[in-house]
């Protein structure tokens, strides 16, 4: 009964901050810009061929034939940097920001309860990441429908499914991406308990993301790939095949779960045992 009030208050705070609203607005603009740019570059809509390639680039071939694909293009483009930044800002700020303002000591003196505070903070981060992800999908869907033809969806495997089926797959893709962002949020939360400088925590999370992406692209380090936090982010294309590549999807979700567990535990162990000196 008490968590909802605390959670609602934190949610209002995070969604009421101008900085965070600006982040969400920027996130919403990207799909629009991508859609318009692709529309201008491909003035003659024509039926695309099933690519079946592994990378997100495969979506581009499909777009001309179906506006729904703008959502997948937008998600895979924004997953490289923009969505991680959005999550890193809110997650990195979560505890470090309170420490920086000094409000952390008063929250704990209320008493918020250290574990409870951490749980609420994480829930807010996940909600924010979910919102950002859904904003990308929603804006991209509307822009795609306005700029390109919309109809039955030809998947990456070449199969064509009905529009409702395609939209359902879009919903799952969005949830998968949101799960990836949730795991990143857990990493951000853990980093955030280590400092009272929010900016430092945010930068650290972004460095981790970029480092992971770089290592993931070095062929000689391929063995490390599956264990990297960013490795499975783009695997949502498994949902765009018939049959759905569930083993890849599950491995991705497992990776997110493990990262959430490890960094969540780390954040908890650190936060419940450290002196609050700010």
């Amino acid at each position, binding site marked *: *009964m*008490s*968590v909802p*009030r*605390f959670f*609602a*208050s934190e949610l209002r*705070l995070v969604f009421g*901050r*101008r900085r965070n609203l600006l982040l969400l607005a920027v996130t919403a603009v990207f799909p629009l810009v991508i859609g318009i740019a692709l529309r201008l570059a491909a003035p003659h809509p024509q039926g695309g061929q099933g690519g079946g390639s592994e990378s997100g680039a495969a979506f581009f071939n499909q777009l001309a034939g179906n506006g729904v694909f703008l959502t997948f293009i937008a998600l895979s483009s924004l997953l490289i940097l923009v969505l991680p930044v959005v999550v890193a800002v809110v997650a990195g700020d979560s505890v470090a920001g309170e420490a920086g*303002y*000094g*409000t952390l*000591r*008063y*929250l*704990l*003196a*209320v*008493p*918020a*309860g250290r574990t*409870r*505070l951490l749980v609420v903070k994480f829930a807010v981060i996940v909600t924010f990441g979910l919102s950002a992800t859904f904003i990308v999908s929603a804006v991209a869907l509307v822009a795609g429908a306005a700029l390109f033809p919309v109809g039955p969806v030809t998947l990456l495997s070449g199969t064509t499914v009905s529009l409702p089926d395609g939209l359902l797959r879009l919903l799952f893709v969005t949830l998968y991406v949101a799960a990836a962002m949730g795991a990143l949020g857990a990493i951000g939360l853990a980093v955030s308990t280590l400092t009272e400088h929010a900016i430092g925590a945010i930068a650290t999370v972004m460095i981790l993301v970029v480092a992971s992406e770089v290592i993931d692209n070095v062929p000689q380090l391929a063995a490390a790939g599956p264990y990297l936090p960013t490795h499975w982010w783009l695997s949502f294309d498994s949902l765009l095949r018939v049959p759905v590549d569930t083993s890849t999807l599950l491995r991705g979700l497992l990776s997110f779960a493990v990262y959430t567990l490890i960094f969540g535990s780390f954040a908890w162990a650190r936060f419940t*045992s450290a*002196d*609050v*000196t700010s």
Partner: protein
Amino acid sequence: MTAAPPRHGPQRPVGRDPDRQADRLTAISTSGLTKRFRGGQLAVDHIDLAVPDGSVYGFLGPNGSGKTTTIRMLLGLAFPTGGSAALLGVGMPDGATQVLHRVGSLVEGPAFYPFLTGLDNLARYDAVDRTADPKTARTRIDTALDRVGLLSAAKKRYRHYSLGMKQRLAIASGLLRPRDLIILDEPTNGLDPQGTREVRALIRQIAADGTTVFVSSHLLAEVEQICTHVGVMRSGRLVFQGSLPELRRTGAARVTVQTADPEAAIKVLTALGLPDTRVSAPADLPPAPAAADLLPAPGSGSGQGIAEVSAVLGDAAPERICAELVQAGIGVRGFAVTSPSLEDLFVGLTGEGFDVGA
């Protein structure tokens, strides 16, 4: 040094005790409470606080003497490296979530979100309190703001508050609901004399409601008018604890003689067996330096050379001292028996300051 502290003290039912007179528990008690920082510095060194229920307890000491670290441990913000602490009979830090909602606190200055209004900031802290009734939140917040005189500034953003307003908002956050104990760490820091007076009046009011007040300060003068008890910290140790009259009793009365012949006066006083003789120019501020340092060179400037000679009175009768002085042919310009002021006692206990963290 890190003996596992026995935590959970005797528990008291949650909520305000209706029969406070019968309730003589200590509001705050610590036993051998110790904090050694990771760097090895001993910030708090085995202190045994006993803050009686219903008292206004002045927690005094120079800056850096360990007051804030102690308060952080009392509130469960920092973990002791030795000893134990209990608030309202509940062991800390383990009992934090059980007991802290009965404790209002101001720790190391106010802290709020600058981009929220005073009202929204208080609403936020109230929303975090799982035992607070959301239905009465607005009324309680308004009452708290009213008590500190901030109701008219409730909708102003915190960043536009003056220093005094910020300090008062922090006190208001401690008053969001009836409390059994209020812990105020340097509540008058940064306040002008008017603000200091207001805070003092507020503390009196809070205490009159039956709330135990634990107020830290580096200035005795700020709290001596309102305190019933004091604890004095020096370099991490509790060097005195007791009621104000008890503190006064620790001060030895001194006999002071104004004379043009200090050397002879000292001889008389010493002959009478009075310890700690000192000489100072009458205008000099106490405490006076040791006698030898200030003795005027013999024969020099005897015209205006009135000096003040003093010694600890002890059991000697002042009348006899006076008579002895006169008998010895010393011209006595003035004669007085004085008890040290609380300020003198305080400075005596804490040293002159500036030996921060030594």
